[in-house]
């Protein structure tokens, strides 16, 4: 019997099972890559929404603080005294409820912020807890005495609050960007140029 040359088609026919398996494996790898990529994009978008909601709360607290420390802390109630059936406006009395209302508002927002932070931590974005302690401290410490303070003292406090608020916002977006860095388009020519510059530098350093 003469030996027949083994053709490519014959080789494929003999190993058909292997090609079938390989194609199935490739399909699964492709699916996995696509799935991971969309999951990553979805997580990034959800995390971004949470960071935006958190930064809105920080802004809201800053707005509340400015309003309270500059205007509302000096709210006073008009005391009406009745004298023989005639109502006379007496000395204005400081409104004790203003600072309590302010604290309640701030803490309601802080609680919400903390929930968002927990959700972000579960997504791998961890924040430094020190802002959480510094922010309510700057905002609410001695707020019950604010009505006695000079306008300049209260304005200084507002500046401090705005400073902490600004730092907090920066920290939020920096932490987010650290975990989800922005994607940059791949530039092959640029990459080649950089590599060539590196080689040139190395070559110059030799001589």
């Amino acid at each position, binding site marked *: 019997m003469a030996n027949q040359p083994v053709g490519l088609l014959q080789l494929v026919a003999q190993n058909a099972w292997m090609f079938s398996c390989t194609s199935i494996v490739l399909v699964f790898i492709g699916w996995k890559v696509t799935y991971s990529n969309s999951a990553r994009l979805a997580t990034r978008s959800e995390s971004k929404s949470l960071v935006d909601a958190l930064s809105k709360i920080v802004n809201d607290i800053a707005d509340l603080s400015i309003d309270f420390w500059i205007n509302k802390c000096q709210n006073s109630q008009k005391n009406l005294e009745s004298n023989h059936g005639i109502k006379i406006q007496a000395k204005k009395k400081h409104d004790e409820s203003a600072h309590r209302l302010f604290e309640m508002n701030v*803490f309601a927002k802080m*609680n919400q912020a903390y929930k968002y932070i927990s959700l972000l931590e579960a997504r791998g974005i961890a924040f430094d*807890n020190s802002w959480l302690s510094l922010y*309510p401290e700057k905002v*609410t410490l001695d707020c*019950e005495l604010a009505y006695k303070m000079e306008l300049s003292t209260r304005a200084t406090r507002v500046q401090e609050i705005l400073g902490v608020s600004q730092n907090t916002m920066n920290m939020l977006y920096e932490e987010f960007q650290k975990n989800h860095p922005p994607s940059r388009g791949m530039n092959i020519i640029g990459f080649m140029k950089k590599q060539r510059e590196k080689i040139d530098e190395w070559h110059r350093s030799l001589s």
Partner: protein
Amino acid sequence: MINIVIAKDFSKTPFGRFMSDSPYSAEKFRKDFLVPALRSGEQEIVVDFNGIALGVGSSFLEEAFGGLVRKEGLTKQGLKSRLVIKSEMPFYKEQIERFIDNAEPERL
């Protein structure tokens, strides 16, 4: 170990610095709960903030815990080693530590 659950033992809405501000003020809390617990000689005093409605103001924390150094003459180190703060909100512990650190005794 002494366990002080603020929401159960004191009030769910602690508020204000001095007794003149509120019936559940920091001054009252310090005098009725913290000082007796710390003077009892127990090594660990657990202060549990869980269950409080909304939150506790910074002024309350400063007067209650900073006041232990300022007005009750307790040492910063002793306080920090004996007080255990339990809370879902992580910032109470940091705030309290800072208030204790910043407080200076008012009388010698």
